[in-house]
């Protein structure tokens, strides 16, 4: 996936961002009466499908609320992790709300308005003795290759931690369930879902890793849209509506104030 992301970034940067004509996208969206929002439905609990395979998840609810508050129809554009940036840059979606971590590399090509955080933790079965990141020494820990959990743990875990890198969430989870790894690192919301699905494993949180701000992604040079989004997030943070959505999926309150202050 890392490779795909690199290809995606390189290709889009190489062919140039200038291709998409600059206009007032906010006015265009209002005129059209519809906003296209890109979400990855394979990234629980942010984007996923319910029992009837209808879109569900924290990002889906945020997107629906945003469209409603803007007074336009919500059009879902299904994306995957690696093609979020190209879909945005080539105008195939208006904005991206898809557990999109704000990184300096991405900020070179897209604009971000922070709206949520991704809280990464290490979790594992009850019997495994881990109380802090230092205790990971000598343990086998499953991560998704090239994802934030991989880069963060590579930095923060003791040097003799055996990081076992898998291609996606599914294989990492299977490795934990079959006992091939002692613990895994993933968003807190995923821990909640797994703890519910596999009660026999007695999963429990072991250590905090990082809180990564997530952003609504939009194309650069769209000051009107960016200002509107920023105002919308500030309002949602103040009245607690964004926190309500967050708590439903992540089991904790969302405090956006420090992140919003840091990105003034």
């Amino acid at each position, binding site marked *: 996936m890392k490779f*795909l992301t690199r*290809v*995606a970034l390189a*290709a*889009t940067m190489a*062919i*140039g961002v200038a*291709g*998409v004509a600059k206009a007032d996208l906010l006015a265009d969206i209002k005129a059209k009466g519809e906003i296209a929002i890109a979400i990855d*439905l*394979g*990234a*629980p609990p942010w984007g*996923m*499908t*319910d*029992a*009837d*395979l209808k879109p*569900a998840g924290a990002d889906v609810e945020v997107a629906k609320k945003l469209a409603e508050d803007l007074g336009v129809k919500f059009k879902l*554009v*299904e*994306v*995957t992790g*690696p*093609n979020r940036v*190209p*879909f945005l*840059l*080539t*105008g*195939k979606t208006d904005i991206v709300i898809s557990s999109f971590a704000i990184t300096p590399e991405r900020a070179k090509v897209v604009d971000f308005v922070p709206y949520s955080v991704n809280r990464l933790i290490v979790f594992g079965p009850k019997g495994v003795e881990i109380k802090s990141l230092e205790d990971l020494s000598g343990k086998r820990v499953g991560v998704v290759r090239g994802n934030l959990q991989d880069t963060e743990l590579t930095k923060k875990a003791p040097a003799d931690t055996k990081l076992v890198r898998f291609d*996606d*969430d*599914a*294989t990492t*989870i*299977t490795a934990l369930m079959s006992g091939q790894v002692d613990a895994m690192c993933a968003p807190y919301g995923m821990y909640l*879902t*797994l703890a*519910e*699905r596999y009660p026999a494993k007695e999963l429990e949180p072991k250590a905090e890793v990082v809180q990564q701000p997530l952003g609504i992604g939009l194309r650069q040079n769209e000051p009107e849209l960016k200002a509107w989004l920023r105002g919308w997030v500030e309002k949602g943070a103040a009245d607690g509506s964004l926190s309500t959505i967050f708590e439903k999926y992540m089991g904790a309150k969302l405090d956006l104030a420090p992140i919003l202050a840091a990105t003034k």
Partner: protein
Amino acid sequence: MIQFSSTHLIYLIEAARWTVLLSVLAFIGGGAFGLVLALGRVSQHKWLRWLSAAYIQIIQGTPLLVVLFLAYFGLSILGLDIEPIIAAGLSLTVYTAAFLGEIWRGCILSVPKTQWEASNCIGLSRAQQYRYVILPQAARIAIPPTVGFMVQIVKNTSITSIIGFVELARAGQIVNNSTFQPFITFVFVAIIYFAMCYPLSLASRHFERKLNVGK
């Protein structure tokens, strides 16, 4: 908690229709263009040989992912708003043709030279030689490697998820990520892929017997 159910199975089967459609597009487009390339590779005209060889070299050396990327995102930056299905059909055609062209060139060349000479002696034109003597014999030899490559293409169509197709592999990923039951999900994905590829292999065996390859 969401359990894997018949709704999910139906979703997978519906997604498999994209896999079938994309594969068929690749076979038809790639087959037609591939034949042109194969004939170009063995042409009497030097520039035709050179042109088809250059095309095959370039495409075989480029990942399908990049071809797909350029077709979908690249063309759209140039101002052509291209439908995903057209971008996918075009890329798969471009890719499949390069491989089939080279496979079939080998098959044409493996027809003994004496067949060319003999057919020349009875006064057949170049076109007639191909039509009545060379291509029928090359086709027999071509069946096993062609079917082998087709089976690859069926599975390669999964790469089109990068431009937004929810085909079988991507659908499996989505189902798995909502049910968290990877085992049952991917067993069904595998069964559906097998159900698509196995008939191809059966057909290949049937034709091989019928055409008596290898005698």
